[in-house]
């Protein structure tokens, strides 16, 4: 119960960071995704079963805070949780050696999933939106976001690991 309440607090903190903190510092178009990285961290540290329920709850809360249709963030987080689970069964997931490369791969794929799905929802939501394939600027944006996400991921990773240790 204590762990659940702490996790709920962290989720709300992540949503606050995402909506009212990061866009001011980094500009909304290049800001990292604190909530996405939190879900990635939970998926890595707690495993599929636990992360699935947190992904659904966090996704719904994130949809509420972002004024978008309920379900959009849930779908993104579900894919991220499944991706982590898929790779974790096959490869060693640790913050050392080649494990770090795997974490970076997770961060890159999660950033891509988030960007692709959010853009798809935007186009589906308003057919009049034209998106020009300006690949260089998109690539630059995703690189910035991946960098920001990597920092956020390692912050969450260390925080949640410490919390889990303290609760044991």
């Amino acid at each position, binding site marked *: 119960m204590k762990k659940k309440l702490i996790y709920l607090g962290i989720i*709300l903190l992540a*949503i*606050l*960071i*995402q*909506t*009212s*903190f*990061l*866009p*001011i*510092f980094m*500009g*909304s*178009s*290049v*800001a990292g*995704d604190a*909530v996405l990285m939190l879900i990635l961290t939970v998926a890595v540290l707690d495993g*599929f079963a636990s992360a*699935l329920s947190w992904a*659904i709850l966090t*996704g719904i*809360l*994130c949809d*509420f*805070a*972002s*004024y*978008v*249709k*309920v*379900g*959009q963030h*849930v*779908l993104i987080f*579900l*894919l991220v*949780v*499944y991706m982590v*689970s898929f790779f974790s069964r096959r490869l060693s997931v640790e913050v050392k050696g080649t494990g770090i490369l795997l974490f970076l791969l997770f961060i890159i794929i999660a950033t891509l999933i988030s*960007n692709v799905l*959010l853009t798809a*929802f*935007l186009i589906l939501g*308003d057919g*009049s*939106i034209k*998106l*020009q394939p300006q690949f260089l600027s998109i690539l630059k*944006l995703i690189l910035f*976001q991946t960098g920001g996400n990597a920092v956020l991921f390692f912050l969450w990773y260390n925080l949640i690991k410490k919390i889990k240790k303290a609760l044991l």
Partner: protein
Amino acid sequence: MQKLTSTKLFKVGLVAIFFSVLVFLNPAGFFNPIRNIFLNILTPFQKITYTVSASIEGVGEFVSSVGQLKEENRKLHSENELLLVQRAMLNDMKNENDDLRNQLNLLPRNQFNLLSANVVGQDPNGMGNWIEIDKGSEDGLKEGMPVIVSKGILVGRLSELAPKNSKVVLLTNPKSVVNVSTTQTGAKGVAKGEYGLSIIFDMILQTDSIQGGNEVVTSGIGGGMPRGLYVGTVQNVHASDDNLFQQATIMSPIQTSKLQFVFVLLGSK
């Protein structure tokens, strides 16, 4: 069968189908009561976070810009001298305008009922298309009301309202369309958001005269938006894709990521 239903892929697939249906069906307003409760809880914390981050950002910006301040100060001095001259001219024109308005029985311009609001959040999806303010339907706000800063610079319009907070769709939002005109030449058209990054001045007749540096204000055509709210300055002018109209990019003076307070325009006094 039991083995299949216990697989991770099956579970994820099932939840994904449920939420995909929810996204596409989009039961309008179904979740609004829960969303409103959640936003009511979140908004006070957002207000604190936003203020704290704006203060930290302000300090950081000050430290990093010390070197530029001297040069900027020199520029501002010369600009100030120019503005003093322009102000004197404008005061004279204002008096003349007031006299003419009195003679024609026209209502005074730029006298609006304003409601100040704190910005508490921004688009977290990186599209930069909206901001969230801490005033909502309980404060008498309605969808479509214009949102401004500094007495007359247009920021956007109210879009979705909760009792205690609302979403403001910015001018850069692809869904935003505002009737505008230039102050210098009177060229009319619409200001549309593009890709969430810039504002496009579209549908300008080929016969209308427009050039870089022209000031763009709302034209008041179509109602809902008063005349004379400042939108920005014209950057580059070019023909539209179909060559039927002229198009221009509008440079807005507002940096949305730095907005802390805005005013909702409730109506004329």
